């Protein structure tokens, strides 16, 4: 086949009209992986055999009727895949082969998706650049001197390098949206409690969500509809009872607190252009205030590290092959911070206080959503940075999360939307946040924007 289609619809149209079959699709993706993976370090495990098996099965049926029939999918390596090694990007789990699959992996398989492999990521999803992977950083397919962002580094790399049509990542403080923004992709951090986390190695249980990366908003909508819903295994998941209301008039807010010192001029320019575009198509854009924005990063780094220290306790060297000495620097840093903020004598001053501020942050957003349908925000304060640029300064790296941690602390959905390119030819996107379970409204707003700028899905290599 000549060109790999870049959307689910094109893929399925091609399969149904017998322009190509699923096996040929797998051939093409594998060819791309074989050509570039050594260089870009995107896949940790390629499941060639399983992919062909599934493709043959789909071709044999021939109807391509299920929602993801023939859709080649890759998973961040923190999604458990039965009988397929799952490392979480850490050497501790270098040889770990799970005995069960995550709910989301099963849902994709049942919907006809074809798993092609497991993706590199920051170890245990700790990071905003992909550089904390114990298996080395993933290089940005748009320019290999730059990071892909993280922690779902391989997920963004695989889709933008055309090694997989879609990919799953995770988003605890921006780990899906930031790499999506750095690689010109659509990335969704869904409402907390809309998609089951069962079988995804936990980082921070009250913040973790299953993220998805696609080329287009239409594809994101299909993926979300497949993935969402109760599975009886994640007690925090609820089926949304919210009706999808087709609105004719939208009102979007921009928080004045988001225009801070560290905001890159090009990113700011992008946000203002997005505002203009929305106004042009009749969407009202108003200034709003989110007064607790400055507490976002400190609150996030207290809550998140506390939960990380708890969740990583099980890797105590007794059951998973390797002992604690295999933890990387970032994991150790977070375990120590988290144990500290939870310990007797410090709990009230740190964890307890952070939880109270978290409630105030949630109230900020509840108030804001009384007047606006969605909020526009930068994803990252800067365009993609160079590999090694921030590694010696963990605090600077943590500030990467200033705009993204919000949606996780509040539990609301946020959609990263590709927009423009920097003067160095690197992608810049923006995010739209909405009230809980407003995913479909965010999709509609994003589609309106892409229609206006005549967005076309594109691959880097």
């Amino acid at each position, binding site marked *: 086949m000549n060109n790999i289609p870049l959307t689910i619809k094109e893929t399925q149209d091609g399969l149904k009209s017998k322009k190509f079959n699923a096996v040929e699709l797998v051939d093409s993706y594998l060819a791309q992986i074989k050509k570039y993976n050594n260089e870009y370090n995107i896949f940790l495990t390629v499941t060639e055999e399983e992919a062909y098996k599934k493709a043959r099965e789909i071709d044999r049926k021939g109807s391509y009727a299920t929602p993801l029939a023939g859709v080649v999918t890759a998973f961040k390596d923190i999604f458990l895949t039965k009988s397929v090694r799952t490392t979480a990007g850490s050497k501790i789990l270098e040889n770990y082969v799970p005995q069960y699959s995550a709910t989301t992996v099963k849902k994709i398989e049942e919907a006809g998706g074809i798993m092609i492999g497991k993706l590199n990521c920051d170890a245990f999803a700790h990071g905003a650049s992909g550089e904390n992977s114990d298996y080395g950083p993933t290089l940005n397919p748009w320019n290999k001197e730059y990071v892909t962002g993280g922690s779902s580094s391989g997920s963004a790399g695989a889709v933008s390098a055309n090694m997989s049509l879609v990919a799953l990542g995770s988003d605890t403080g921006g780990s899906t949206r930031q790499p999506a923004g750095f690689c010109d992709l659509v990335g969704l951090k869904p409402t907390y409690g809309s998609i089951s986390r069962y*079988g995804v190695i936990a980082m921070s*249980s009250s913040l973790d969500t299953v993220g998805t990366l696609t080329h287009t908003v239409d594809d994101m909508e299909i993926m979300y509809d497949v993935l969402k819903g109760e599975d009886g295994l994640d007690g925090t998941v609820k089926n949304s009872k919210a009706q999808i209301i087709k609105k004719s008039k939208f009102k979007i807010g921009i928080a004045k607190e988001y225009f801070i010192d560290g905001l890159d001029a090009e990113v700011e320019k992008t946000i203002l252009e997005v505002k203009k575009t929305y106004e042009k198509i009749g969407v009202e854009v108003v200034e709003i205030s989110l007064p607790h924005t400055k507490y976002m990063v400190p609150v996030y780094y207290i809550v998140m590290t506390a*939960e990380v220290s708890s969740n990583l*306790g099980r890797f105590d060297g007794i059951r998973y092959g390797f002992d604690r000495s295999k933890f990387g620097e970032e994991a150790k840093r977070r375990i120590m911070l988290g144990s500290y903020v939870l310990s007797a004598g410090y709990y009230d001053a740190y964890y307890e206080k952070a939880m109270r501020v978290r409630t105030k942050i949630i109230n900020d957003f509840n108030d804001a959503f009384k007047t606006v349908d969605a909020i526009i925000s930068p994803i990252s304060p800067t365009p993609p940075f160079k590999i090694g640029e921030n590694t010696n300064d963990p605090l600077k790296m943590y500030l990467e999360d200033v705009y993204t941690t919000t949606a996780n602390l509040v539990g609301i959905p946020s959609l990263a939307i590709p927009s423009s390119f920097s003067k160095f030819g690197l992608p810049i996107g923006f995010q739209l946040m909405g009230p809980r379970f407003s995913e479909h409204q965010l999709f509609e707003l994003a589609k309106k924007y892409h229609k206006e700028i005549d967005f076309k899905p594109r691959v880097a290599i």
Partner: protein
Amino acid sequence: MQYQTVIGLEVHIEPNTKSKMFCGCSQDHFGKKPNTNTCPICLGLPGALPVANKEAINKTIKLGLALGSKISEYSNFYRKHYFYPDLPKGFQTSQKDSPFCIGGELMGFKINHIHLEEDAGKLIHSQGKSLVDFNRSGCALIELVTEPVFHSVADVLKFTKELQLVAKYLDISNADMEKGTMRLEANISLAREIPNAKFQMPNYKVELKNINSFRFLEKAIEAEIRRQELELSEGRTPIQETRGYDENTKKTFSQRTKEDSHDYRYFIEPDLPGLVLENSKFEIRNSKITELPEQKRKKFAEQYKLPKDYIEILASDLGRANYFETAAKLSPDLSKTIANAMINKNLDKEYPEPEEFIKKIRELEDKSYESEQSTQNAIKTVLSENPEIITSYRSGKTQVIGFLIGQVQKQLQGQGNPKLIMEILAKELQK
């Protein structure tokens, strides 16, 4: 110097739920082949998440309501962190603030709270190796914590035996100490008794762990009290620590001192949504709660007029207590005989059906009654001795017949058949 013993208890009860606390594995782990009763959730595998067992929550609340606890309107699970090979997640899911049940009492002993948590696995040490069996890991476990209200071993025994009985009556657990479905920990200290001074709580406590039988309990607490008395009398304050009991030496021994006590780093379990418990709903359910042992005893005394020792024996075994009631309902006139046949002759063991049992009792009764002839003779004697009673009976005061029956039985030394006496008496009085 005189000392007063102060004891508070922590009682663990494994409820008889169908499944474990947070997964679908069987709650019944007893005697199963190691590591066959497990799944990703109770093994704490990466990615696994808990879902709370409603049956276990309901049983905990049932116990609380029976003991007069206040049920929390909003309740949470917490993560309690410590490292041990039998704790696969590195934390135990338990409760801290807002446990399901707060306060309450049993036999006048005050309860602090009742909460729900998960059990750990089991370590098996053999041939220089330590093995872990996770069959029990994640099993539901109810923990009842009392106030420090016990002042003697006898009090502790009284309370724990009654609690065991309550658990059985409510069908919460068989609370079997030998099988480990009921486990005890006692916090023990001694207070100085100073005449005319206000009672002051001691400034230390010693935790006595892993008590797995009533016999053990008595011996272990007594040994610990003796040890503390000795310490105090020699001018030392016992150190705050956890101790175990060695049956061979008949002494308690130190297991862990306060210096290496844990900082559990508790925080609310984010994977389990908080529970809103509608109090009214549970109160309605409470009205349907089966009888408690104390109510049973009262009924046996008032309704069936059983002697105290009979009541204790019957009430301490719910199965037999219910058997007695069924039988006594079939023939209310025989209640004492029924109890007697059960307790002294174990007749209920021979006749699983109360109907058959009654039939047998009646047969035995007939055999042991005085003959019709001697009954008739006795009646004649009584009637000839009490002409005024006959007159008042005939004038309409029919209740005097009770007096006559009593007199006849006296003549027969209580061996008269009540039915027969009644029949003959009625006939004679009609004449």
